[in-house]
Structure formats: C-alpha cells, structure tokens
C-alpha cells in the first residue's frame, strides 16, 4: 500500500514538472501570495543580469564578470527553485479538475506538500536577497563571560560553555578551546558539576561558522535555584556571549596561485586597478633595439601601494615577481583592515557595557523546564536537551537566525518600496530623474 502510494507520488511529481513554459508564466502571476512583489521584482532583475553575464562569460572569460556572476548566483538559484515549485503548484491545481477521482486525490495530497515546500523556498528566496554579512563565510570565536554578580553567573557560564561545545560535537563542527579560565579557588558546585568560569573562548573552525553562531551573541539569562543556595530561593543571573569572526592563518588566506586568481581572496587584485610603468626604451622597440632595461613598477591605484622590481634581466620575470609582491602587500593591508573592522565590531555592537541585562536574548528557566528566546518568541521545554546542545538547542538557534533574517527582509522591503515610490514620482526626487 505504502509502496504504491510512493510510486504514484512520483508519477504525479513527474506530471507536475515544469515542462510547459506557458504554465510557468501563468503560475507566476499569483506569485505575490508567497513573496512580496517588491522582492520578487528585485530577484527577477538580478536573475536577468545573472543570465546575461553568464552568457557573456561563456563567450569571453573575464574574472571580474565571473566574480559578479558568483555574487548573483545565490539569488538566481533560489529564484529558480521557487519558480519550479510555483509552476508545480500551477500544474497540480490543474490536475485537481481531473475526472479521475484517484488522480484528484493524489494531486490534492501532493499540492499540500508542495505548498509547504513553496513557503520554505519563498523564505529562502527573501533571505538570499538580504545583504550578506561580510564575515558570513568565516570561522568564528565564541567568547563566554559571566555577567555582573556573584558566583552563580560563573557557574552558569560554564553550563553555556558546555552547551556550545556539546552542540559542536553533536553536529560535527570542528572546534578548539582557545581559553578556559576558572575563578580562583573555584571548586565544583556539586550536582551540576559546574566550575566557576571566568572566561572561555571556543574557536569554531568551520567556514560559515560566524553566520551560524552570530545570532547567539547577547545576554543569556538563567533563573534557577543555585546548588549552593540553602533556602531554595530562585536566583536570576546572566552570562554574556560574544561571537566574533576569526581570521585563521590558513592556506586560503595565503598568497598563492589559487588565491591570486580567486576574486574572493584578499590577495585578488583587479588588473584594471593597477598602473604599470616599464622603464621602456623610447624608440621603435622590438627587433630595432637590444636594450637591457627590465625594471618595472606597479601601482595599485585605489590604495597607492606600489612595488618596483629590477632584479632580473628578464622584464617578464620582474613583472611576475612584482605582481606577487603587490598582491601580498595588498592582501596584508586588507587583512589588517579586516581585523580592525572586527575590533570595531567588538567595540561597538558587542562592547562589554552594551551587553547588559536589558539586552537579554534568551532565558533558561530551570524550575519551569523552559527556554525562551525573546527575539523570536520561541518557547521550548526539555531544558536538559537544550543545555546538552541537543536538537532542542538547534531549534532555538534556528529561530533566532530566522528572526535576524526577517528583520533584514523587512528592511529590504521598506527600501524596495521606497525606491518604487520614488520611481513612480520622479518629480519629487531630483536625483532619480536623470537616467
């Protein structure tokens, strides 16, 4: 019975494939159901640019274009998936009118499934449009410190530390403890086996870890009866969590053949931005002269970094050496800037005094066996599973991330609508009028 149903599902899915272009178009007219029109328009614009550039790239490869295509492909892929699902819905809807009862039923079931999928895809599409955090692809550091107040905060800091470690272990993310400092004279607090933590730093070594954990930054509040508390009174204390991008000295960040040609590397230098000066002999050149001037100077115009090279009698070798040196210097400068940015980030958004009790993002309530994320308003039970880094923690983390994204999407919609309004009323906006 189950098997037959599965087989039929498949054939229905086959039927619902978007082989029919007309279907595809008519289906996207009621697109607004899932995704705000403003966003859909932006996505379609991006996909059109993507396709144009990708075609150009096939004819004539160019790293700059390749980089742009790479940037646009995230949105384009998300749009394509959403469109495919959208057209399936169209075709399944048509099948609902089928005279065949069984076919109708199956189309009905399948439609429910696809509609659910459509919503996920629409969310993914909206999210793909939001500006990507510049550090999203980086590994990260999770820093944990007790909030102001007594021993209880320190013990709970240890609980939070373990929670993230166990979470990493469970989902298989490589991590390293950079620092684990226990308060002077701290002994284990009995039952929970917690130590009075001063400060801990976990380095999460996976690319994209910063994106995964950045929504964990903030004040984590605990409400429980400390194991040292004789009277059974519930205490409230807090632990601060910082999440920072980390800049490992790994091979991707090393100056080498691969990183030189990778537009995303800090060592990538756009040749258009480099002025080259050869100590060129005046005159006809070529066979006419046999001068030995081989010196070359490169200047990276945006930064003014310049390199000159005259070691070899071969201008070609000097030029290659000069390019290598220039890339390394620019890479070095960019790395320093990036680190400064990270420090600025730490000092502004997440500075010590800014994380206060008022910024509490989550509460762990022991007596009620409950964990609440105050931003996404998600409330879960099974606190032990949360504190062991189990799937329940995963759910909370996901909800916080979704909240971050939805905030970005809202900002984006506001921006798109403002733009659309300005376009509709060009008279009111002088800047927009010149085209």
């Amino acid at each position, binding site marked *: 019975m189950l098997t037959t149903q599965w087989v039929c599902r498949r054939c229905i899915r086959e039927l619902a494939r978007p082989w029919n272009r007309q279907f595809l178009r008519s289906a996207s007219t009621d697109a607004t159901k899932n995704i705000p029109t403003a966003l859909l328009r932006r996505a379609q614009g991006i996909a059109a640019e993507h396709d144009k550039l990708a075609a150009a790239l096939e004819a004539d490869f160019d790293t700059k274009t390749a980089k742009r295509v790479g940037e646009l492909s995230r949105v384009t892929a998300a749009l394509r998936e959403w469109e495919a699902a959208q057209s399936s819905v169209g075709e399944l809807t048509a099948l609902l009118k089928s005279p065949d009862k069984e076919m109708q039923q199956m189309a009905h079931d399948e439609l429910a499934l696809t509609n659910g999928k459509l919503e996920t895809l629409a969310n993914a599409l909206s999210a793909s449009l939001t500006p990507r955090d510049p550090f999203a692809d980086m590994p990260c550091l999770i820093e944990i410190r007790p909030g102001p107040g007594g021993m209880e905060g320190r013990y709970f800091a240890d609980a939070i530390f373990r929670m993230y470690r166990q979470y990493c272990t469970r989902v298989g993310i490589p991590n390293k403890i950079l620092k684990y400092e226990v308060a002077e004279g701290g002994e284990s607090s009995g039952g929970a086996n917690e130590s009075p933590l001063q400060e801990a730093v976990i380095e999460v070594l996976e690319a994209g870890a910063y994106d995964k954990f950045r929504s964990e930054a903030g004040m984590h509040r605990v409400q429980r009866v400390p194991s040292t508390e004789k009277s059974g009174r519930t205490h409230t204390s807090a632990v601060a969590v910082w999440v920072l991008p980390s800049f490992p000295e790994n091979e991707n960040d090393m100056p080498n053949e691969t990183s030189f040609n990778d537009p995303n590397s800090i060592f990538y230098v756009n040749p258009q931005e480099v002025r080259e000066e050869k100590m060129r002999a005046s005159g006809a050149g070529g*066979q006419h002269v046999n001068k*030995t001037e081989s010196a070359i100077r490169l200047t990276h115009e945006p930064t003014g970094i310049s390199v000159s090279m005259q070691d070899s009698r071969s201008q070609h070798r000097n030029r290659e050496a000069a390019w290598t040196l220039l890339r390394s210097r620019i890479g070095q400068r960019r790395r320093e800037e990036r680190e400064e940015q990270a420090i600025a980030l730490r000092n502004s958004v997440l500075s010590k005094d800014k994380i206060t009790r008022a910024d509490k993002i989550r509460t762990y309530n022991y007596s009620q066996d409950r964990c609440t994320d105050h931003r996404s308003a998600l409330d879960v039970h099974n606190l032990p599973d949360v504190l062991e880094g189990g799937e329940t923690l995963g759910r909370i983390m996901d909800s916080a991330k979704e909240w971050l994204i939805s905030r970005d999407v809202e900002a984006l919609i506001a921006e798109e609508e403002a733009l659309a309004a300005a376009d509709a009323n060009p008279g009111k906006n002088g800047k927009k009028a010149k085209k």
Partner: protein
Amino acid sequence: MPRIPRALLRAAHRISPHLAALLPACRDLASARNELRWIREHVLRLHRPHPLSASPPSSSPRKKRTPKAGHGHGSTIEAAVSRLCRRRAAGTPLQYVLGSQPFGPLDLACRRGVLIPRPETEAWAAHLAAIMRPGAVAARVVDVCSGTGCVALLLRALLGSGLRVMGFDVEPRAVALARANRERNVKMGVLLREGVRFERADVFERGWVERLAERPVDVLVSNPPYISVRGFNRDTGRSVRNFEPRRALVPSPDGVGERPADCAPEDVFYARLLDVAATLRPKIVVFEVGDLDQAVRVVEMTTRRRERWDEVEIWRDWPDMRPDEEEAQVVQVEGRGDVPVRGSGHGRVVFLRRLP
C-alpha cells in the same frame, strides 16, 4: 646621439670606474648600475667553487675574503669584471657579453650570428601560451625563423608534455644554438627534451611546406625579419647594427621569388607566411611585426586574399597590460572594419584565429 655629460661621467667614476666605462653604452646611470650588477653576478657564479669540489672547510676563509692586488680569488674576479665591462663599453650587447638572456623560465644562450631574444617577444609568447592553454594538450606548433629557439622552447616549457613544436631557421648557427638551448634548459630542469625539434629550412623554398603539410599543424608562429632598409639605418640601435645579424632583421631581396606588386619589401615574409598558412591551415597564426602600420598592412593582406579568419587582433608590446589613455584600442582596416588592439606599447603582433 647626445653625449654623456662630463659631470655625470665624473660622478659615475667616483662610484666605480666600471660604472663610468659602462655609461656611454648604457646611456644612463640606472641601467649602467644594473648592468654592472649583472656582470658581477655572472662572474661570481662562474668563479664560485663547485659545491661538490673537495675543498676542506678549514682552508682559511679569511684569505679569500681579502683580495690583495695581483693575488688570489678576489683579483681574478675583478679582472674578469673589468674585461667584460670593457667589451660592453665597446658596444657589444650585454647578452653577447654574458652569453645568455633569461626568457620566461628559460635561460637562453646567446651568440654572435643569432639575434638576441627581445622582451616584446617574451611577452607575446607568454600571452599566446595563456590563450592556448585550455586546448593545448596535443597541439602541433610550427615556429618559422626560430633564431635562438626562444618562442618554440617557451611554448613547450609553458604548455606541457603533449605539445609538439618544430622550429625552422635558414641560418645554421641559429639551428645549432636552438638545439643547444634545448639541451641547456633540459639540464637546468625547466624543460623536457621530447617534443621540440629544430631543423634548417628556408621559408621561401618550395618543397619544405609540402613536407610539413603531411601532418596537421595547429599553430603557426613567426618573428621574421621585418625592418625596412630605411628603418635599419634610421631606427635601430647602434649595437644592433654593429653586432646583430642583419639577415635576422632586414628581409633580403634575394631568393624571395617574385614579390607581389602591392607588397612592401619589408613585408615579404608575411606574404610568404600567409601562403604557408593557406597550405597548412592552422587554427592560430601569430606574427611579430615592427609597428602598428605594419600590423595593419598584414591584416589588409589577409582581406585582400579573401581569407576567412574568425578572429583578427593586433597586440601591442605588452598585450595584457592596461592601455594608456592615448593608446587606441581598435583600428579600422580596409575590408575588415574594426580590429581590436590589445594591451599597451607599440603595435607588435598580428593574431589570427579560426574557430572550430
């Protein structure tokens, strides 16, 4: 040529008498300094005790460090440096004085009778290698007028073991030097011996092309003599005129057969090479030329012959360098329309490609 100011000579002399000696040949202090450095490095390399020679480490290193006039290692070196500087000062090209010129990863021996490889040639050959790289695996390349073998050997070194390259030159000394250069670079470990051959041949000889046409040829490259008699007298450097072989620079009027009426004497090699290309039907043709005008004349030749090339380009001296503001990036050619001009510098190369 303007004379070197006395004050500059005196300043150079104060730094080193060698420098003052080199100055007239090098024209400016910066290149004189560089040449002196290269001469010194060359001499030191020759005089360095062989790393495997059994000289006991205790043999007083201090003695070696303090050259006493007329005695020991140091004075031998100074004597050699000053001998080479004198040759250079007399106008001999540095490449003949040192006996070599680096060319990409290669080091090429240079000898009288064979043209010294030029940096412009190095630049376009490297650029060509980059263009060929995606499909180069088993390509067959013919280099006509191969001289030191620089272009053939560079393509072979940069493009991997499937490539077959044949170089041809009419000058026996060039063929011998090109073969020696192959061995030299094989020994240095920057080249594999297989896949490159050099033979004596005159491009204007009939039977040669027919023999070559027995197997398919994918790429035809040539840096033929391209200077006019007038250009030779007016535009060439003195040490080029006095020391390099005229036959490598100026097309000789003998033995070229009847020249087409509309072909300038300095363009005869291109007319012939286009005939060769018509027989061999390579996918890519690359000719070095003397300037933008000559490049345009060569492109015009292809249109007058009604040849169908899918891509026609002109490259400047540094084909992958950003052009200066005043450098046109396109030229109009009779019968072809707009022809892209790539890079920066003088017009240097005509590139023709037939797409599969």
